[in-house]
């Protein structure tokens, strides 16, 4: 999984991603924020433009690709690496979760696990950042930041209440 990055002076940056079958995905990020996505049948071929997207739309598409809305793979968490050992993860709160119904200060999540809850998705609404008074409800999706160990502890805290 190699990603080639190069500068395009006066234009922006170019990223080339090797796909499984020798194809390459080329993403040109313009300084204006516009993204252009191209496909190369192979490393030496000419790029064919697939689509372009505004900055906002590109982020939306990126989030979908990231699996923030739907995870087809049951066993694995959605995870985004922010740096070497910091993850941004999404967890669902099920009925059996111990922390459901508690406020953030009551649950003392950071004290017990080390992760920070940076946002709560509740239906259409996004609570960001949540206050200590925010009460966690069943069905919430929690967006948390922490290192691998902290995230694992948080998973244990959610226990059986972890919504896959």
């Amino acid at each position: 999984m190699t990603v080639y990055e190069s500068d395009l002076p006066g234009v922006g940056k170019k990223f080339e991603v090797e796909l499984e079958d020798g194809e390459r995905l080329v993403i040109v990020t313009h300084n204006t924020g516009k993204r252009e996505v191209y496909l190369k049948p192979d490393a030496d071929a000419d790029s064919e433009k697939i689509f372009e997207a505004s900055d906002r739309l590109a982020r939306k598409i990126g989030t979908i690709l990231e699996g923030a809305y739907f995870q087809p793979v049951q066993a694995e968490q959605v995870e985004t690496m922010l740096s070497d050992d910091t993850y941004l993860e999404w967890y669902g709160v099920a009925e059996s979760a111990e922390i459901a119904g508690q406020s953030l200060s009551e649950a003392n999540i950071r004290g017990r696990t080390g992760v920070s809850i940076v946002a709560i998705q509740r239906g259409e609404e996004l609570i960001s950042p949540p206050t200590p008074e925010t009460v966690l409800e069943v069905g919430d999706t929690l967006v948390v930041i922490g290192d691998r160990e902290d995230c694992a502890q948080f998973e244990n805290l959610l226990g059986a209440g972890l919504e896959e």
Partner: protein
Amino acid sequence: MATETALVDVGILFTAVALAGVLSSRIDQSVIPFYIVTGVLLGSNVLGELPTLAGSEIGIGGFAVTVPEIAVGGVDLLAALGGLALGETDFIVVGAEIGIVLLLFFLGLEFNLNRLIASKDRIGKAGSIDLAINFGIGLIFGYFVFGSFLAAFLTAGIVYISSSAIITKSLIDLGWIANDESEPMLGTLVYEDLFIAVYLAIVSALVLGGGDIGDATGQIAVAIGVILALLALVTYGTGTFQRFLDAETNEFVVVRALGVTILVAGIALALGVSEAVAAFFVGMAFSATDHVHDLERLLEPLRDAFAAIFFFWIGLVTDPGLFTLPILGIIVAGVIVTTPTKIVSGYLGGRIYDLDDRRSLRVGFGMATRGEFSLIIASLVLSGAGTGIAAGTATDLYAFAVGYVLVMSILGTSLMQYSSRIEPVAVSLLERRRAGATRPPND
């Protein structure tokens, strides 16, 4: 001139330029030659049918010669049309000046020394080959045609500098930006841009300071002083600029950036230093702040509007009568000599980036396009007419530059567009020549 007429004139200017833009996008060509031709057509020499104005009498940055309006009293349609002709008003002259300043400001803004240092080997090699071949040929050609060192030095600049604006836009339009050939092209452009900033500083001192090195020494000393001051600004001014641009609204950012840039450029010009070079350094000073993307986003439309006025002005002060047969001959010779040189140097640059024959050729085709910077040099020639350069030579050189850019901007863009048809032929020729050569063909 009454305000209402002046306002109508500016309206005519932008309308004409807008129509030229529509036409150019219809036939998939660069807008620059269309803007120039529009300027020629609306100028006093064509539409106005006034006695010809020698372009050499008009200095940019100095006082503009306002062409007297033709009285539109008669029923005569020609006279009425003639009344639409635009003179070289203060607005157009200053607008063109701001166009030059903003073009170079952007060059500085997007110029990244760290990036240049990071890939200095490849950019340095490709850029030096480009410089040696094209600037060298330009010197020889210029000396052969115009017979003086300064004219040769100016010709070399005109034929050496490729058009960053047209090439970058074509790369994006054709989708080449996602291919490997975009890197050597953009890298070579960075090298050229840096060279042209230094070149303009030297050549403007020569042109404005009396032409020969002896007379220009004082001028060059002042120029070096100003440039050192600007370099100090770039080196130590980042923090100040950063705070200076920390404004709440876009409005403040735009106004402040324009204030600094145009003021510094104006002061530099008053001291006899190229305003374009000063603007380049101001751009560089801003490039180290976090506001680069904001500035690019906010100022780009302004730059394009004023650059359009600049190209229009170039046409406006061009008398079609300048294109005598000998001048046309020089233009044709220039095109014939300097198109292959760019293709060769671009090809070699592509090889330095380990591209195959086909892509290396594309680099050459793309680099053949000349545009805005050649015209900036041409405007410098005009302003130095009679002081640094003999008026006759200056007029000829100016006419050559305008005609040359008209041809090369269209030819270069076309070479890129039809590249896919030319490539197979050229590649097979290359391979045939290489058959039996020591170097194995790359496939």
